[in-house]
């Protein structure tokens, strides 16, 4: 049975008619054409589909869309503000923390959630928090450096 639900994605309200048990991932990608969020495994194992719900990292591939109705959702497309990249997006570019880039949106969203809850994570804390995200190109070391760099940037911006 289809239901009308309201999704708040990247500050925009969408009223859509969907089957409530569809995955948030497929609704974002197919109904809202927000394709920055990726499919990687469909079982919450790789993190490519990570989005933020109320600031927390959530695997959209195993999240039924009705559970997140009317709650603020941020996808990779909503991270930059007025054309200005989020410090973690900048850090990914500066460090060169990607190869094929397919895991990158999920890595960045998970990293943003980490930095929101822990602005000065140690390397061990980064590893623990990020361990559910797979990068088959093996850029893990660079991703850790990018998160550390973003943490520093955000602290410096905060001081200013």
């Amino acid at each position, binding site marked *: 049975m289809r239901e009308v639900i309201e999704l708040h994605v990247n500050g925009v309200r969408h009223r859509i008619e969907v089957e409530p048990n569809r995955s948030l991932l497929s609704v974002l990608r*197919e109904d809202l054409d927000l394709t920055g969020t990726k499919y990687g495994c469909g079982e919450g194992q790789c993190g490519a589909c990570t989005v933020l719900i109320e600031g927390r990292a959530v695997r959209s591939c195993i999240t039924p869309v009705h559970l997140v109705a009317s709650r603020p959702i941020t996808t990779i497309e909503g991270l930059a503000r007025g054309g200005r990249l989020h410090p973690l997006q900048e850090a990914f570019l500066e460090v060169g923390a990607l190869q094929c880039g397919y895991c990158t949106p999920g890595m960045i969203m998970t990293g943003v959630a980490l930095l929101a809850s822990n602005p000065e994570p140690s390397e061990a804390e980064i590893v623990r928090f990020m361990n559910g995200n797979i990068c088959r190109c*093996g850029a893990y*070391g660079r991703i850790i450096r990018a998160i550390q760099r973003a943490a520093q940037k955000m602290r410096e911006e905060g001081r200013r």
Partner: protein
Amino acid sequence: MREEIFGETSCLEPERYELFATSLPIIPTHHAPSREGQDKSAVTALAEGPLSAIAPLLTRRQFCQALGAGLLVLLVRDVRALQESGGGQRAGASPLPREISAWLHIGEDGVVTVYTGKVEVGQNIRTSLTQVVAEELRVPVERIRLVMGDTDLTPFDMGTFGSRTTPTMAAHLRRVAAATRELLCDLAAQQWKVERATVEISEGTVRHAASGRSQDIGALTRGQKLARPIPDTVALTPPQQWRILGTSVPKVNGRAFVTGEHRYTSDLKLPGMLYGKVLRPPAFGATLVSVDTREAEALPGVIVVREGDFVGVAAPSSEQAARALAAIRAEWKTTPQPSSREIFEYLKRNEIEAQGWEGRSQHVVGSIEEGWRLAEKHFQQTYTVAYIAHAPLEPRAAVAEWKDGRLTVWTGTQRPFGVRSELARAFGLPEDRVRVIVPDTGSGYGGKHTGEAALEAARLARAAGRPVKVVWTREEEFTWAYFRPAGVIEVRSGVKADGTITAWEFHNYNSGAAAIRTPYAIPHQRIEFHPTRSPLRQGSYRALAATANHFARETAMDELAHMVGMDPLAFRLKNLTDERLRAVLEAAANRFGWGKVRLASDRGVGLAAGLEKGGYVATCVEIAVDRTSGDVKVVRVVTAFECGAILNPDHLRNQIEGALVMGLGGALFEAIEFEDGKILNARFSRYRVPRFSDLPQIEVVLLDRRDLPSAGAGETPIVGIAPAIGNAIFHATGVRRRSLPLVPHGLPLEARRQPQD
């Protein structure tokens, strides 16, 4: 018609020109009388001289429209071959001559567009090839655009594999760009009536210092009627003078990836597009007995397609498609299949005759019997490697559209032209009615040489009369793609007491012949590759069999060193004469502190070295073992790598780091398990790949040899990590592991005892 055109080009003989430049006789689209007329004018104007060779290109409406006016420069491998290749084909309808290997275009706006059939799968060649053109053309990186992997727009290319982009495509583009630079300087000198030697290009502007004149290269080409061959004597910039090459230019389109803007194939959406799913057999080798699709067909918006054993559905959303697929009732007939438990015996029992590069090969030096006789100690061992999966994070995907009798397919493949042929064959179309476009793809690692999803999407789209997208699930990717081959390798060797290897015999069953020859100087050798039947579909993987062959060879080298009581590094150095190999071994050992590292009792060190595809690698590792849990953790890796002159040091480091991390998986725990024709671990929750917590401290030592040609680097750095880890496990525990993966279930029991036990 084609033959006539080629007849006129004969005046060019006997010289063999390799580069052509032309300004495009293209009518700007805003006053084109008709598209047909435009096409014809292009052909007519070019039917003089060598440019007729590219007439098929210029009849391509999309190509001409994409270019606009400006200067087009082409690199042709061999004009004579080009003329001979066209017999009997219609110029307007034939595929492009394969002898044209690269072209670039300068628009009147000064934008440089480079066309290459190579594809970007994360190895960052979009960036390195841009640097190549920027360097030779003296144009800023930002003004260069690469069109890659589009069979309508780019030159024919065999595919992006074998680490060939840097040694071949980068070399072609260097020559095209350098020739273009010279042509532009000639043109400016003529226009300004100044000495040619006093004209130069920098930052995309042609300049004459004495008069202070300058002009943008785009403006310079305006209104020119250029049509002339450029001799292949053009001077390339020596690496010692590189300004853009050899520097760490960041990924050119990086921003699109960190913002999610980049559209991979799986992200594309066409108007009216449906989502497709394909019915899979329950096991390999199963055949369809009966199928009932009535329930699926009754679902709203669902189209069911049945063509022979192919059964698929298309629906307005992927979840509707999945539901429709689940509603299909099918009966299959299965046949007995070997399982992963018995795979190595199976491979040894099932040798086959095969032809070509996959066929049996033999390399003999001296007399193995003589070498065996000269030896004072004799060694014989067997090594095995498991099937593993590439598991690219973007699974196979394709979007297909039929329009006006033409098929266009977007798909992530490493062989766009190969997939075009697959599609043309499957649908009985001439190749020029099929276009394959490869958006920058979510990686491949050798695992995307084929066009399965492309064929499926095209089949469904033809039946549906609408565009269809097919994206494989992770389970499909783990099951219906192809695997890195499993293999059995037998080594027999003899050494003298002083550590000189006298005999080396090496037999590889099934895994492949890449890097099968030993790089060590051994007087008596017998090296053979034995093709066998494979119960699983198998194919390329990053570095092919070089990983398996290095694993067996470098483990055996370690065993031999211990047999004669020598340090593994000293033993290798004693038996090699290749100075490039010596250089990487010494560089890695020095940085690592080989022989100097103080180790706790739970630690071990190992090393391995080798060469493949023009690159030289040496890897030293330190591991920590937990004798209670059986865990093996790689704590530190030092890899020295040399691949000639380095084009982009940071991207090279990224490739090496990535290869090491990927290699950890195949070394330690990755293995495909199968039984009764089913993959038992076709998910990330059951097939473990390296994660953040597996990451060791990685140190990369780059040896930049600007005196040597550049080789590719995406593959070779992976070959040393597995044997180095295995050798370190032996060092830590005294237990030798001779199978990849080394410790899928942790250390074996005999290795868990304390050293004093």
